[in-house]
């Protein structure tokens, strides 16, 4: 096992631990999303931060409620620490999926 792999694994563990240990408010007082502020509709990524914290704690239903593609976002986030060809496929597919999901959200079919 190379030093690079160990560093990546350690960074991924540290991130997971932070997501598992800390919590963010389910209903934040301030929304940082400019798209939501402008249009009143959620953007494709709205709720993803809360969903990632929920997923790390094993709260799947809560995570999917915040953002239906939360498991995919979780996989994409931790895929960043994996230096392989699959990462590029995962991210290309993931970005496309979030774009489609975003269109549904903006049109009012979801969330």
């Amino acid at each position, binding site marked *: 096992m190379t030093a690079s792999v160990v560093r990546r694994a350690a960074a991924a563990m540290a991130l997971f631990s932070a997501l598992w240990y800390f919590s963010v408010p389910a209903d934040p007082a301030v929304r940082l*999303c*400019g798209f939501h502020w402008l249009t009143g509709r959620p953007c494709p*990524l*709205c709720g*993803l931060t809360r969903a990632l914290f929920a997923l790390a704690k094993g709260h799947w239903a809560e995570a999917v409620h915040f953002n239906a593609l939360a498991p995919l976002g979780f996989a994409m986030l931790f895929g960043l*620490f994996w230096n392989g060809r699959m990462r590029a496929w995962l991210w290309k597919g993931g970005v496309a999926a979030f774009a489609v999901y975003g269109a549904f959200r903006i049109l009012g079919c979801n969330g």
Partner: protein
Amino acid sequence: MFCHKCGTQVNPDVQFCPTCGASLAIGPPGSGGEPATPWTPPAIVEVRAGRWISEGWALVTADLGNYVLLALVFTVLSSAVPVILQGPMIAGLHIFTMKKLMGRRAEFADLFLGFNYFVPTLVASLVIGLFVFCGTLLCVIPGLVVAAMYKFTYLFIVDKRMDFWPAMQASHAVVKRDYVGFTLFLLLIVLVDILGVLCCVVGIFVAIPVTFAAITVAYKEIVGFDQRTVDAL
């Protein structure tokens, strides 16, 4: 096209550079808007954000007077004429540090050498600003990633004589090797600027050149300067 000697943007029809008088007819192959040799992104990129920032800090502290003056003029002119002057002046800040890294004599007037690349740097700053704005609208983080993606654009324009779009693509080609690392590099740069503001606001005039110097150091390490630029500067 651009003059291969001084980098001034010139009309393709002219035979001599209106700024330095160099013959454009006998310039090196590919001395127009495209680089002499096709540029290929490095296969492996290792992000060393801390080292780049510390090298940028060392460069700035070694010539603090000039750098603070550059940052002051940069801030005043960028505020007085927002958007229009920002791109060329960022290029000028990079040129100043490039000369330092090449061991050449850098002087205050180098800040205005960026105006030799006025059109590509202006368009780049507009397009990048638009992309970052759109990214920031989507819950902030995509905007940070987009800003990180195009951090080297002005250096590709100045160093490789690229137009704004190929330069943006080249910058993206470097950053996509490690999106996380370069985004963290950008966040560190923002942190340096915040620390500068916290130092009685005037600290920003040290922080700004440190951040641009760090980006130039990173570019030199990852991409390397073009021989034509080394000769021209």
